[in-house]
């Protein structure tokens, strides 16, 4: 096995304020600011200025990122919004350059940060296909060779000579992905492009990427969709505020990611900072087992999830809809209840009881939302209030270990 991507001490600093398109006035201001202290001869100011600049005017999107990826590996890059995923991809795609550090990429790199880059709405699918292919680094001859396969994969044969502005957004995505999928690079970098397109096509894309991985190429895949990441990738890199602990097995990476609590959500507790003027809001979610509030639950005992909602006196009848999700953020089940609204009381607690020995040991989180009678969302929180189910006792099923799924299914064996 040879190294495919080698990243050493990679950092990227963004200067705040200056990065946006400036005007000449800003330039003059900046220039005069630089001149004035020097003229006044004040040494103190001269010394104070640089440190101030580094503190307030810049921020590190990536800090000392270091890892290497073997050829043929498929790596998931995961992290919360703003963790530095996009910056890392932009550096690897050579869109922006790092502040310090070094990256070595072996082989041809194709990056797909957006499908259909450079599509011109007035041009036909055929014309855009050539254009897009060459933008992504193919030569015209290579596009020629792959043309039929690309059109076939995208399923747009009938519309290939229609201007792209008449395409549905799904068709545009399909054509864009099809071009990129046929690049045949040694390294394929894919951002969250699969979020668009229907289920069928998403499956097709994942399948295609799987093929690419199996043919010994390296894939770097960025997504918030943990199910897709765990399906496609064998290893993962978790980014947190521009830093990373390097490459680890994907299941471990997902666990690390899930433990990074978003905002005020920590194990077994979620407190929302909701606005006052909403007709209704979920203000707090707690988890209780045997009367204790906790985020770590014994697998064989019942527990309660307590939702605190606040309703405006003018609020219509609302419904609470909640789901428990597994660590891949797939819903396990959903429960819905009407909120009995009495005019005098504006804070209402609703308690969901969950049986013991229902969820398998593992990590879970909640989705909770309020719906008005027209089924519109009034309030909505995703993947909050994470909790852990611990294996206690000597369940024979759990003694073997391995992946057993997420629930203890109610079942019976019949033997004769």
């Amino acid at each position, binding site marked *: 096995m040879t190294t495919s991507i080698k990243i050493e001490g990679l950092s990227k600093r963004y200067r705040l304020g200056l*990065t946006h398109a400036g005007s000449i006035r800003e330039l003059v201001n900046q220039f005069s600011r630089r001149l004035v202290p020097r003229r006044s001869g004040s040494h103190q100011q001269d010394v104070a200025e640089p440190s101030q600049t580094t503190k307030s005017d810049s921020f590190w999107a990536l800090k000392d990122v270091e890892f290497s990826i073997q050829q043929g590996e498929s790596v998931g890059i995961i992290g919360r919004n703003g963790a530095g995923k996009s910056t890392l991809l932009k550096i690897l795609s050579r869109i922006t350059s790092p502040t310090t550090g070094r990256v070595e990429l072996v082989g041809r790199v194709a990056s797909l940060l957006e499908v259909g880059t450079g599509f011109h709405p007035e041009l036909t699918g055929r014309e855009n296909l050539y254009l897009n292919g060459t933008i992504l680094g193919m030569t015209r001859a290579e596009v020629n060779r792959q043309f039929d396969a690309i059109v076939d994969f995208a399923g747009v044969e009938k519309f290939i000579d229609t201007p792209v502005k008449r395409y549905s957004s799904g068709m545009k995505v399909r054509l864009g992905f099809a071009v990129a999928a046929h690049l045949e690079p040694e390294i394929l970098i894919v951002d969250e492009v699969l979020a668009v397109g229907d289920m069928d096509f998403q499956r097709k894309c994942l399948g295609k990427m799987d093929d690419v991985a199996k043919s010994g190429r390296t894939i770097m895949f960025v997504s918030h969709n943990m199910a897709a990441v765990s399906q496609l990738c064998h290893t993962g890199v978790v980014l947190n505020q521009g830093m990373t602990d390097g490459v680890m097995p994907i299941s471990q990476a997902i666990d690390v990611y899930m433990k990074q609590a978003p905002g005020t959500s920590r194990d077994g507790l979620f407190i929302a900072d909701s606005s006052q003027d909403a007709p209704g809001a979920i203000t707090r979610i707690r988890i209780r087992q045997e009367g204790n509030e906790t985020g770590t639950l014994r697998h064989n005992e019942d527990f309660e999830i307590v939702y605190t909602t606040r309703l405006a006196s003018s609020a219509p009848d609302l419904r609470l809809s909640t789901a428990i999700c597994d660590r891949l953020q797939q819903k396990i089940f959903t429960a819905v209840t009407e909120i009995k609204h009495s005019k005098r009381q504006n804070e209402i607690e609703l308690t969901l009881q969950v049986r013991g020995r229902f969820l398998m040991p593992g990590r879970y989180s909640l989705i909770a939302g309020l719906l008005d009678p027209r089924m519109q969302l009034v309030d909505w929180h995703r993947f909050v209030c994470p909790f852990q189910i611990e294996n206690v006792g000597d369940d024979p099923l759990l003694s073997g270990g391995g992946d057993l799924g997420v629930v203890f299914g109610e079942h019976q064996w019949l033997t004769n």
Partner: protein
Amino acid sequence: MKPSPQITIIEPPKSAFELNLGEVWRYRDLLMLLAWRDISARFRQSIVGYGWAILRPLITVLIYTLVFSKFVRIETEQPYVIFAFAGLIPWLYFSQALSSVTGSVVSGGAMLTKVYFPRLVLPLATVAVGLIEVLLQLFVLGGVMFWYDFAPGLPILALPLFIAIAGITALAFGIWLTALNVKYRDVGMAVPFLIQIWMYLCPIIYPISVVDPEYRSLYSLNPMVGVIEGFRWSLLSGSAPDWSMIAGSSTVTFIILLAGLLYFRKVEQTFADVI
């Protein structure tokens, strides 16, 4: 064994200037397709289509003729219609190329932030777009000349040279402006104004003979003076342009182009962050 794979090294930008035109050459297919995209999308969904390329200068020339030949009565060697048309063709090409080169990087912003390619491709691809229009306009001018019984002589062979100088001049100034435009959008605002002023400093609506000989060498520092004079000479014969002047201003243009290329190369790595 597979042939040894290409290795890409990504490092912080070095301060040294380098041109690296070989990379642009490797992306020549993209360059051609981008140019062709602009050409072919330019007049789509318009009824007159490429007719606009002819209508615009034709109407402009008619108005100039009315104003400057009937009202103001400017004396020219040739019939005013032909005189103005022959001056207007290189100017329209130059001004359109200059403004589209200036806007090229900013308008390619969506591509710039999503995929890597040598950024130089963007201004290079736009500079050639107007050539099709030049060709169409030359045909129309040919028709007008035929009407006035004017036949071009041997100097017509020099025509591509002057078009090339016009294109290179547009690129030389545009490449500075487009790089600056990324950070300072003021540039984009100023360019139409610049073009308007520049036009009055070119012998388009008036012959160069109205310029005081004392100031003529200063006047000819404007590279477009040589281009327009030369263009007219190669089509209509008449008085030959001042070749030493053309050589001088072309040298200056070339230096501006080279410096512009180096500057562009230096700042292009920050485009995606700034745009």
